[in-house]
């Protein structure tokens, strides 16, 4: 069992990136900013020329834009949802992981929420989806799943920011106390006068607990509603009752994978080997394994029922995925989401940091493909087969797809510069808790794992 390191060491380790960053950080920021700038350039070109510069067409009216939307919203489930579930269930090992996860949520949501706007034919009029008294004398159409999306995503984003922010307060105060000048004032303002009094602690814990409980249904609802963008439409292989849970499961699945990847990178880059330990990857790997099984079950159920039902319109889409033009992507997806991660994660020996990272990378790729395959083959095969079509992305869509990944990295890099990525107080608190529970529970305190 690991002893509690000195406070000073914890502070130094966990605040290292806040205090000082190296060349690697600058390189990361510059490169990711450049890649992201290319996406902004592509979007500018799109604004100037029209969305015709995308590869979308009739009948494939949605493609990479919405794929990315669903994908990033899915990724966003890493954080808040996972951290909330872990908090609510009192999983002690969560402590060094939660903030990392919550930040993913906020950034992924920010990115995901961009896509419905940039994919519009008239992006500058996106605010027409916002309910406000206007000269058109119209509210948005509350029957449209897109309007639901708008509310769901905004709620989730707001909730996630709050949920990220609350546990950040004591750490902000910590930084405030350790800095001077302007910085001190900014962190001072951000830490809302935190002093660490008993009352403040009690209130904070309560608030975090409440948010954790509240955010779970919000998160579930968000991806359910995203799934309803499809499930509410009477399109073959969209109009499915299991799309809600299927999407939520897929979201958590890809979210955990993203979290594992982010943690692995942070661990390396910020030298947090002592804090993000193999045991965390092991636990998350187990979660990922569970989700992989669930994903497989849902996918199997979904495709089996379609196949068994044998409706021509559904089968056209089904065949195009399983054996037709989209089959290479389909089988890559199945491999990435199941056949690659499953053995790695199921075999304890392979469930190492490296193993989970490989599995997670596969899952992220596989889940992106899944989103694509939900959208494009269905749209390419309308019921009246005279109108079948194909889709090929243009460079604009490709830049708009790669750019946000860079943007994500950029946001993350900035975040670690501004805030401790492992919650300092939660981490410390873990030792207190583990002491308390040491004798009671046979399990090891996750915050200070023994290995």
């Amino acid at each position: 069992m690991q002893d509690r390191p000195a406070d000073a060491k914890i502070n130094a380790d966990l605040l290292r990136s806040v205090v000082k960053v190296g060349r690697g950080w600058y390189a990361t920021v510059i490169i990711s900013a450049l890649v992201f700038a290319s996406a902004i350039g592509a979007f500018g070109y799109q604004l100037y020329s029209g969305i015709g510069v995308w590869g979308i067409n009739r009948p494939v009216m949605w493609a990479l834009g919405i794929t990315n939307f669903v994908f990033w919203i899915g990724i966003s489930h890493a954080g808040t949802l996972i951290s909330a579930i872990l908090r609510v269930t009192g999983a002690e090992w969560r402590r060094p992981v939660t903030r990392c996860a919550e930040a993913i949520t906020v950034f992924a949501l920010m990115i995901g929420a961009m896509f419905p706007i940039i994919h519009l034919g008239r992006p500058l009029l996106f605010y027409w989806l916002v309910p406000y008294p206007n000269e058109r004398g119209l509210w948005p159409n509350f029957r449209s799943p897109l309007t639901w999306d708008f509310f769901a995503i905004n709620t989730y984003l707001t909730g996630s920011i709050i949920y990220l922010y609350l546990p950040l307060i004591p750490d902000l105060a910590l930084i405030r106390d350790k800095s001077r000048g302007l910085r001190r004032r900014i962190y001072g303002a951000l830490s809302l006068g935190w002093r660490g009094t008993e009352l403040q602690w009690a209130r904070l814990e309560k608030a975090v607990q409440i948010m954790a409980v509240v955010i779970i249904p919000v998160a579930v609802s968000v991806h359910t509603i995203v799934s309803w963008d499809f499930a509410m439409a009477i399109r073959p292989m969209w109009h499915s009752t299991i799309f809600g849970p299927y999407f939520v499961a897929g979201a958590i699945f890809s979210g955990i994978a993203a979290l594992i990847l982010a943690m692995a990178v942070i661990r390396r880059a910020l030298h947090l080997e002592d804090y993000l330990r193999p045991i965390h990857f092991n636990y998350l790997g187990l979660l990922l394994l569970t989700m992989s099984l669930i994903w497989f079950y849902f996918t199997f159920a979904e495709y089996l029922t379609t196949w068994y039902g044998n409706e021509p319109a559904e089968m056209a889409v089904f065949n195009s995925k399983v054996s037709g033009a989209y089959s290479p992507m389909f089988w890559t997806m199945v491999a990435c989401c199941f056949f690659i991660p499953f053995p790695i994660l199921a075999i304890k020996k392979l469930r190492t940091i490296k193993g989970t990272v490989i599995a997670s990378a596969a899952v992220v790729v596989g889940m992106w493909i899944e989103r694509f395959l939900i959208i494009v083959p269905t749209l390419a095969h309308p019921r009246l087969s005279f109108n079948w079509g194909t889709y090929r992305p243009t460079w604009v869509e490709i830049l708009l797809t790669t750019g946000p990944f860079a943007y994500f990295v950029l946001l993350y890099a900035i975040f670690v510069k501004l805030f401790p990525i492992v919650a300092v107080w939660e981490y410390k608190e873990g030792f207190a808790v583990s002491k308390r529970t040491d004798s009671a529970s046979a399990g090891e305190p996750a915050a200070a794992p023994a290995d």
Partner: protein
Amino acid sequence: MKRREFIKLTSVGATGATLLSACGHPENKLIPVFIPDNEYVPGLDYWKASVCAICSAGCGIVVRTRERKANKIEGNPLHPVNRGALCARGQAGLQVLYNPDRIRSPLKRTGERGSGQFAEISWDEAIRTLAEKLREIKAQGRAASVAFLIGNRASASRLAAEHLLSAYGSDALYTASGSGDLAASSYAMSYQSAGPPFFDIANATYLLSFGARFLETWLSPVMYSLAYGEFRRASGKARGKFIHVEPRMSLTAANADEWLPARPGSEELVAMAISQVIVREGLIKDAPVLASAASLDSYAPEKTAEQTDIPAEKIIRIAREFAAAERPLAIGGGAESMQAINHLNTMVGNLNKPGGVFLHEKTFLNPVETLRPDTTPAPKMLNEAALENGHVSALLIHEANPVYTAARLTDKIKAIPFIASFSSFMDETTQLADLILPDNSYLESWDLRVAPGLKDEAVFTLMQPVVKPEFDTRQTADVLIALSRELGDAARPIPFESSEQIVRRAAAELHKAGGSINAASDEEFWKAFVERGVWTGRLATESSADKTIAAPAIEQRNQETVNVNESEYPFTLLAYEHSMLGLGEQANLPLLQEMPDPMTSVMWGSWVEINPKAAAGLGIADGDLVEVATPHGSVRAPAVLYPAIRPDVIAMPFGQGHTSYGRYASARGANALSLINLGMALETVRAKIAKISGGAKLIRFGTDEWERMEKKQR
């Protein structure tokens, strides 16, 4: 009240204006010619009746103008040919008028011939230049070497050209094809009747068609489509049955109840086999027999099945159905087989009977033609011989494009010292011209059009300018009149003032003949004509009794002249008129380029149709670039796997492959005309096809599972 009755009613009494307003255009006015500025009301619609000149069917149109812009062409509901309907090509008419690639003013060549370098000149200069040239040639005593190449249709401009030549002293009048309107003239030939007959498809109950694409091209697409609608479903009449013989499923064949993909060129045998069954089974009492009993026997379906590829049982069944039908009718699409086909009509005795064939005692001569000079030479075919060295010192071209339709003449044409073109567009021939005097479009011109082959009416439709010329162009008839004045001693002036006057004089002839417009004076007649746009007169039909049909000249059937090795050229090529682009004249209209071909859904290009089985044998997949070669030439185009074509036949539409015809037509697809000899539309040629490397552009609007599956099978 039913729409049709309604139209009939109005066509008896009302004028166009009331009819139009009855059609839901409240503030419309149907008005003649041009309104003076002070009476012109902006924002009001003014409608003008005219004629569609995109094909020779002569449908009546009404054109809406507002703010002096033409903005809609609709079918003239008063017109007996199209009764308010209008085909896709007719709809595209405004793209002729407002085509961005129209020649906007007279041009003279400045660079090398064919370099495409021209300078704008004034009309005065253009006419003067041409006149000088003609005077110079005349002065050399070579007037006869001035040739005029002109389109097939009678027109005011053609009349003026005839006058010009005769006044100038040349009889070198040429046409590009010599065929005129193929189907129409071959019918007239086979019946030895005065003009194209009328086929009463609407009232027939059993229709046997031998390659006649009456729903797309043929004699009068809209008129026969309307008739087809009634043939299928008219109240108080049983649904007609329709059998179509054609090696490839055309759109017309696709609408048949039964499609018989007979071997190309064997239609005549199919028709004769049907005759034979009718005779041997005595299905019709005293049916006239075409050939001697012995020779007829050689056409027995059992004996010809091999050649036609149609099982004898099928022929026997169809013969029985045909003979037993209440009102059977046979129609055909090629000159060679016409007599055998028409004989089927004679057998069932349907001449001049409802649901049958209507022949006319005499045609109503186009009154424009009555204004011809006394010594009008018959137009000759423009061919190699005509263009032999030095024969032609100056060529004037109107409504013809031989460099495109007969590319083999190009070098000969290039060698002509002086070429003047009256084309509105920079087509392949005009590109070679020294002087270009651009014609008005049909929506800016005066003319009179005869509608071919109606049941018992002569139909004349007025072409009138619906807007003032959009560009600095002039109607060719007017230019020729001005030119004749400019020629001085070299020719006497053409005896007309203008194209309008030509048409007015022709209209006066119509007035004399009575017909549908009652008017006290020529002027009153003219006013009514201008308003209504159409004049109809009764035509007597020929009595059927004395109608004998010549014995079929089957033995002398038009055969491929070039000796070809069948194993080298394993396929028969069917080249057909593109249902939107025709022979290529409409390739410069973007709307028609973007119309999906109804059978293949292809747009913006050429294609080659091949049976999927045959294609599989050659390793050809849908969309592959292929090369089609015949003894006459070769072209490259993407393959379309077409399930409804004989495996030993490939087909290709005409229409594309222009090298110069404006931005929409140029450098697009391949010219199927280069695969065949200039001549009859139904001529068939042996061909071979092979996949070649290279990208092919095959753009389709729609598709279906079938094509997809084929693709996957590969």
